[in-house]
């Protein structure tokens, strides 16, 4: 630290206590001058559910896990894999 650093060692912090009521006053004063709360609001509605890779609950667990693993291996969603399976079942070939 240089000589300037020694000067700054004498810099004393001033109390920064502010009560909730004082903070409300500050907010009110600001709002009256157009300094309003511009914090972005959360989007309304239900949050997107995280992917669980679960199939319909009536699919046997082993079958569900096998389908999930195959879809992941192919880089598809399970829905896309099931569409392929349907094509094969219905028309004898995947498109």
């Amino acid at each position, binding site marked *: 630290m240089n000589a300037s650093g020694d000067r700054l060692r004498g*810099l004393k912090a001033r109390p920064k206590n502010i009560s909730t009521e004082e903070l409300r006053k500050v*907010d009110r*004063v600001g709002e009256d001058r157009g300094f309003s709360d511009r914090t972005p609001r959360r989007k309304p509605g239900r949050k997107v559910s995280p992917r669980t890779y679960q199939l319909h609950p009536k699919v046997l667990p082993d079958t569900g896990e096998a389908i999930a693993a195959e879809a992941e291996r192919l880089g598809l969603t399970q829905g896309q894999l099931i569409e392929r399976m349907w094509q094969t079942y219905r028309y004898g070939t995947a498109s």
Partner: protein
Amino acid sequence: MASPKGGAGKSTCAVLLATGFARMGASVTVLDCDPNKSLTRWASRGLPEGIALLSDVQRSELVTVIREADGDGRIVIVDLEGIASQIVSRAISQADLVIVPMQPTALDAEVGSEALGLVQEEEEALGKEIPHAVVLTKTSAAVKSRVQRELEAQLMAAGIDLIEPSLVLRAAFAELFAHGGDLEAMMDDPNIATGGRVDRAIVNAREFTEAVYERIR
């Protein structure tokens, strides 16, 4: 740094003070409350020793964050968005010195005076003095314009503390955001060409930092 006008020089002042005080040996915390994240971008390109940067500080946490960062021998610099928002009024309530940067133009003076008015009303509401000062930014190195002379006269007539020196329009100040670090590091790096006088920018920034130090010590 408070002004509801964008481009007044808040982020430049914040960087010059942060780097200046860090060079003087202070422990500096910079709060980037501007969604444009100018200071976060500057820091991502090289943060000088002695400076910590907290990005994306929100209105609800500002008072707590300032209180936690503050302390003896420490400097907390809050860079605010150039917009009239509640985070500005909250930051002002916590300030040991509110700096209102203004370019010497009629528009900057008009919009900047909103921040000065807010400070004065907060002083009345809280029953305490909130030190505040104006610094003129992007001024001409060669001549003082008529508008600047008139603005200085108006501010002084209104009893507003005017920080001297003003911050001159220097390429090096703008280049800091492209390269990170501080002016001294820029001066020492032969790969950085600013097209301007870095040595003069350093003198200007040091004198500005000294002038601010005199107001907070």
